[in-house]
């Protein structure tokens, strides 16, 4: 199976997801629960809105000074003893990481959560070359064992029920058949993964924040798996998107106050670790950073969409999205689902492949309101729709319908006549087995057509009485 970006088939996959009504309700409620936990934190943090504004301003500064900050970070990081690598694209990141591992004759790798390595398809690349990579975040381990991608950027296994995890662990970790208690199941994973941490030759992590001022990376987890995956092993490789930079150490405080509150409704992740180069107490310890472009520089150049580089990958927009909650992450067919996925995908995989995604939205605006760095997500979705249409990736019949609509609406007489005709033919239109109304009438009724339009009434009697 491939973890690399594929062609999204939102319509098809979401309809399949929705066919299971009960499961859709369960998925929706699970994610809404996470949204309400976020809300509680937001309400209990008196300066929540100021914090968001400040974080947005820091990230706007970062996006406007990406090259300078990258240079500063690389310089500071090298001064701390990091070996800094640059990768133009996914293929180069994979080759670079593999190269470092191969030089050290690594065969067993533990990896903490990194959506970036998902984006690049690092796991299958290393697997094909004889290296064992164990994803150590519990949710990621679950989906890894099921040979499927994560369906959420923070809660990888949110689409999986405890019974399914029980069956999986029975097959792979020796838990008893029929065990479904999350506490017990986690215990089996703890024992299994503890062995992996101890036996691994190298640890790969993502990066939540990269501090230009100090040449440090910050990695946040609740499970401690990034720490256990870097404190014990002689080699650490951190993979980061270039947009993960923050200018100052002080800035980390702002983001640490926002990240876990937005993501899971906790005041902070259990572990928030700054690492600044190799460990002087471990002779021979090596620490590498791979800084990835893979389309980010393209977003940076796109004046309408560069704000999306502010994203800190909290997942709050996924949790609040009425569409994501009822379609599941796989419907988006790309590494990152949900509203942020839908606004990144057209940049990263092109408007042709991503053409459905910005349209998979009612533009309700809830995502914009939960974003800790105030990306105007729903406006981004709308502006992508215009770009997709301009690139010729909106279906011809939809464009034609809009052109005809605009034509009719440009002539009030034609509009009034059209409206009158539709109202007169209404019952027949509704009954017709095919046609534009069918997607509506398959599942919803329409009102009876009124005898007279508002403008008809206004002309007759409404205009009098002032």
């Amino acid at each position, binding site marked *: 199976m491939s973890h690399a970006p594929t062609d999204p088939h939102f319509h098809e996959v979401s309809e399949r997801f929705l066919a299971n009504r009960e499961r859709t309700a369960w998925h929706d409620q699970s994610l809404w629960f996470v949204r309400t936990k976020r809300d509680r934190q937001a309400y209990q943090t008196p300066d929540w809105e100021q914090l968001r504004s400040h974080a947005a301003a820091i990230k706007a500064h970062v996006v406007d000074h990406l090259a300078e900050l990258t240079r500063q970070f690389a310089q500071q990081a090298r001064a701390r003893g990091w070996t800094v690598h640059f990768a*133009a694209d996914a293929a180069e990141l994979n080759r670079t990481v593999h190269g470092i591992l191969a030089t050290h004759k690594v065969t067993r790798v533990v990896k903490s959560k990194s959506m970036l390595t998902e984006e690049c398809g690092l796991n299958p690349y290393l697997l094909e070359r004889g290296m064992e990579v164990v994803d150590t975040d519990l949710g990621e381990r679950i989906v890894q064992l099921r040979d499927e991608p994560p369906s959420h950027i923070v809660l990888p*296994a949110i689409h999986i029920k405890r019974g399914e995890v029980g069956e999986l662990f029975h097959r792979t970790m020796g838990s008893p058949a029929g065990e479904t208690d999350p506490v017990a199941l986690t215990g089996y994973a703890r024992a299994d993964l503890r062995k992996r941490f101890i036996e691994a030759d190298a640890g790969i992590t993502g990066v939540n924040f990269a501090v230009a001022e100090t040449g440090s990376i910050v990695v946040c987890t609740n499970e401690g798996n990034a720490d*256990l995956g870097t404190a014990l092993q002689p080699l650490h490789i951190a993979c980061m998107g270039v947009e993960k930079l923050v200018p100052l150490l*002080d800035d980390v*405080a702002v983001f640490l106050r926002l990240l876990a509150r937005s993501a899971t409704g906790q*005041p902070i992740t*259990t572990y928030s670790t700054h690492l600044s180069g190799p*460990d002087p107490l471990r002779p021979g310890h090596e620490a590498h950073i791979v800084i990835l472009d893979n389309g980010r520089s393209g977003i940076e150049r796109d004046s309408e969409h560069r704000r999306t580089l502010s994203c800190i990958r909290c997942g709050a927009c996924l949790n609040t999205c009425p569409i994501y909650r009822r379609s599941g992450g796989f419907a988006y067919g790309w590494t990152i689902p949900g509203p942020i996925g839908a606004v990144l995908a057209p940049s990263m995989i092109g408007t042709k492949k991503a053409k459905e995604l910005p349209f998979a939205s009612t533009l309700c605006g809830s995502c914009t309101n939960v974003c800790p760095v105030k990306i105007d997500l729903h406006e981004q979705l709308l502006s992508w729709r215009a770009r997709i249409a301009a690139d010729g990736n909106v279906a011809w019949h939809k464009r034609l319908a809009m052109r005809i609509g605009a034509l009719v609406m440009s002539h009030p007489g034609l509009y009034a006549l059209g409206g009158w005709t539709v109202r007169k033919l209404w019952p027949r239109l509704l009954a017709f087995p095919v046609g534009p109304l069918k997607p509506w009438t398959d599942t919803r009724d329409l009102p009876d057509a009124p005898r007279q339009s508002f403008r008809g009434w206004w002309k007759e009697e409404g205009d009098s009485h002032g």
Partner: protein
Amino acid sequence: MDEAAFLARITRSHPSHAAHPGPYRPERIEPSWPAFKSSLEFVGGSSHAAVTPAQLPEAISAIISFGAHRRVVASAAATRLLGVQSGVETASQAGDARQWNDVDLAIIVPELGVCENAAMLLSAVSLPERGLPLLAQHVLALLDLRLLVADMHEAYLRMAHHRDGQAMPHHLTWISGPSKTADIEQALVIGAHGCRSMMILPFSAP
């Protein structure tokens, strides 16, 4: 790809030059043990009643016997604070971190405690034995109540590190409560890969 080529891919001149907004300084709140304790409970940690420094060894003995902990290892910083205590090993500064894989209880001394989220600061200065509280099944943190701050902004200001041109230590971690996960159906499970419990033993001079 080399650095120069990579940087060349990132546009350096465009119309927008948003300035850094400067330091974030919220309204100052007084730190307090009740506030820290409340946050600690929220994140699944527990606390002991406050003691004086002289009472620490006794409190710790009681905690060890109550938990029936067999291998108890204190960080060097904890040993400096407590003195040598029977039943408590001092962490060896040599050798592999994996030696702590069978530790039942780790005793550590954080550098700061943050009230808004029960985060405690540990770094290569207070904890060169980085792996100790990660591998131990349970962690006991000895928190000097003078080291409480209200929020993360104050915490970063108070951090001794990266001050006056000092370089950051190799590791610097905020640890808040025990390890946890909710990856199975959003059911909260305390004790994922790191410690299964986190207890704070606060102390202050009488």
